[in-house]
């Protein structure tokens, strides 16, 4: 899946990646790759501005730590972020249900 197809959904993916605990930017990207079975085709560098945007919105909180003598920015979900993630999950379920009903019961195309 390419970046332009992710518009509007990247925030939910990032929030979900942080649901299990604090992570730094690279680890968030790795978590996304694993959770999407490698289908996410997104430049790693573009994850960081999205994390900064979510931090500015108060949905995640960033802090610096030192790992192996190097400073590392780590992010964790805030209470507002957890609420936003719940809302996005509910919205997605409604959207998926609506699209499934509208598109009918034909067989799903093989992603391969």
């Amino acid at each position: 899946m390419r970046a332009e197809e992710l518009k509007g959904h990247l925030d939910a993916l990032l929030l979900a990646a942080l649901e299990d605990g604090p992570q730094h930017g690279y680890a968030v990207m790795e978590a996304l790759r694993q959770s999407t079975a490698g289908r996410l085709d997104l430049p790693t560098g573009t994850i960081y501005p999205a994390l900064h945007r979510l931090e500015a919105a108060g949905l995640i909180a960033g802090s610096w730590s030192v790992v192996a003598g190097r400073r590392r920015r780590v992010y964790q979900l805030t209470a507002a972020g957890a609420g936003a993630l719940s809302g996005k999950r509910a919205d997605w379920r409604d959207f998926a249900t609506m699209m499934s009903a509208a598109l009918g019961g034909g067989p799903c195309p093989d992603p391969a």
Partner: protein
Amino acid sequence: MPGPSLISDYLADLSADLPGRIVEELADGLDETFHRCLGQGLNPEAAARAAVAEFGEPRVIVAAFTDASRGRRTARRLLSAGPAVGLCWGVVLITARAWQWPVPIIARVLFGVALITVIGLLAAAAVSRRYRLVSRAAAAACLGTTLLDAAMIGTVLVSAPVLTWPAAVAVVVSAGRSGFALRNARHALAG
């Protein structure tokens, strides 16, 4: 960060436009990517090429950071609020016959030039793809907006014969905007 010159050059490209703390964070992620590629059996040069390719073009990253910056958001909010605040003051100036106020012509001209400058700075901060320019233009525009609002409030309080309700509304709206601009000026500069 130790590693091939390709990675150093890549980080130097980012440093040209982005603040040090952001580049430091990106360097950490790039280093992780580089070492993962090394772990996959690539030689250092190939690992650096793969890491840089995976990270994406510097101009794309800079543009994304610029769009997400505090300066950009602040400038867009001030620009969208501008017509409403201007309308409030327009009503005040017309109903109070402001052209009859004892304000020197040079002060009127200076105010007009300052207003146009602030609008230009806000427009630059709202559309430019250069991170540092956006931050600096937004911070300058925030300070300019505060000074313009203070000038309008001071002028009305001194020159208007009576404080009408449109003037009271305009003063409150302007004071609120000034507070927003002042709060965000420092953050815009910090990025």
